């Protein structure tokens, strides 16, 4: 019995939700004329909005998971320095949550709106932006160490890569039009052909995965095994 509501009903919900979206896609035209089309559209739209609303609840899992990991770390850490990092994480997280709850524009009461803006601008912005940006140094080191012609295929990669960096450099854009023409041609023909092949293969895989999920073959999203 328990497997019914633990497993079968969730799988049935997935199937029914998918079916509604499928029916909406195939049977609701741009200009709705029939009442049943209008109902189907309403169910499709409502379901989509529900899914968006539920996605907000999923965001909270991140906070719970991080809290669990760092609470454990505080309890088990041997040195005070390690404990400090996790405690600091909690302080920052709490500050963002408290200021956010009374500062984020969509809340009921926003006396901390200015503090919320300040936190976003001077704490979150530099961190979020710099994490990706600092990879430039690894890239430079990679260019020097790994970008070498060791095989014939590697040489092809190197030559095209080298010319492409020239192509993307404003100096050469102004003074070496032949580079621009060559790489333009490569980007437009062989690169599009190769990437299109990769993408169509990936899309076919994703479509298949979608169908498997709908019919209940793929069940990884249900979490732990019963």
């Amino acid at each position, binding site marked *: 019995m328990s497997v019914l509501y633990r497993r079968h009903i969730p799988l049935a919900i997935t199937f029914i939700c998918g079916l509604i979206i499928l029916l909406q896609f195939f049977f609701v035209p741009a200009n709705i004329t029939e009442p049943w089309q209008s109902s189907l559209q309403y169910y499709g739209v409502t379901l989509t909005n529900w899914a968006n609303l539920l996605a907000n609840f999923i965001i909270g899992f991140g906070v719970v998971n991080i809290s669990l990991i760092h609470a454990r770390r505080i309890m088990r850490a041997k040195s005070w320095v390690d404990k400090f990092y996790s405690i600091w994480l909690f302080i920052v997280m709490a500050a*963002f949550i408290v200021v956010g709850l009374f500062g984020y524009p969509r809340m009921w009461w926003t006396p901390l709106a200015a503090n919320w803006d300040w936190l976003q601008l001077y704490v979150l912005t*530099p961190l979020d932006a*710099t994490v990706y940006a600092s990879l430039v140094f690894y890239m430079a080191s990679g260019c020097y160490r790994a970008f070498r012609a060791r095989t014939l295929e590697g040489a092809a990669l*190197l030559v095209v890569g080298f010319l492409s960096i020239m192509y993307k450099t404003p100096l050469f854009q102004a003074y070496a039009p032949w580079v621009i023409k060559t790489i333009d041609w490569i980007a437009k023909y062989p690169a599009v052909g*190769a990437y299109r092949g990769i993408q169509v293969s990936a899309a076919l895989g*994703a479509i298949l995965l979608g169908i498997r999920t709908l019919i209940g073959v793929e069940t990884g999203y249900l*979490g732990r095994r019963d």
Partner: protein
Amino acid sequence: MADIITEIITEIGIWIAAFLTIAIVSVVYRDNPLFKFAEHTYVGAAAGYSFAVAIGNIRGYGIEYLYPTLKDPWYIVPLIIGVLMYFRYHRTLYWLFRYGIAIVVGTSVTAAFVRSIEADVLTQLRSTISILFTKGDAITILGNVVLVVAFITSLYYFIFTFPSLHAGSLGYIPRIGRWFMMIAFGYSFATTVVTRIDLFVGRLNFLLFEWLKLPA
């Protein structure tokens, strides 16, 4: 007076932002306490930020339908299901989480794959076939033929993965595909280099002109 206080608070903010920027970049030298501090600040800030925004959205896209004026009573259903999702951490009632995730997965997966057939497969096939009938100069025609060959061979490389189809005389097809992919990845590599520089120069602009206030 208020202006001076605002200015001081802004200036403190700029110094904190500069400190955090430098702390994050310092990891390229090696892992160090400064980076660890910034890293933990980042994780805490990002998690706290997303949480606050999610609560705001639950109000905006859910509770607003029920309160202060009742617009659509059915919205009580996703709100309850959403709360039930937190039983995920319960030892025995964890399965309640599955009702919510089933709605999200069923809806989003179908919405994506059903349109993917047209956007990612059919249109791409149509475009590839149609260029064979496009007129143009010799370079364009050569390009079109190259595109089609690159497409077919790289598609073959990924779709027909049986070992027998990659051996013998048929082995030439995926091998040609691999050559085209190498050319494409060479181009990709350069664009990645540009992106990283682009992002970092953005941060340098902040450090040089907003923090150090050097003449632009």
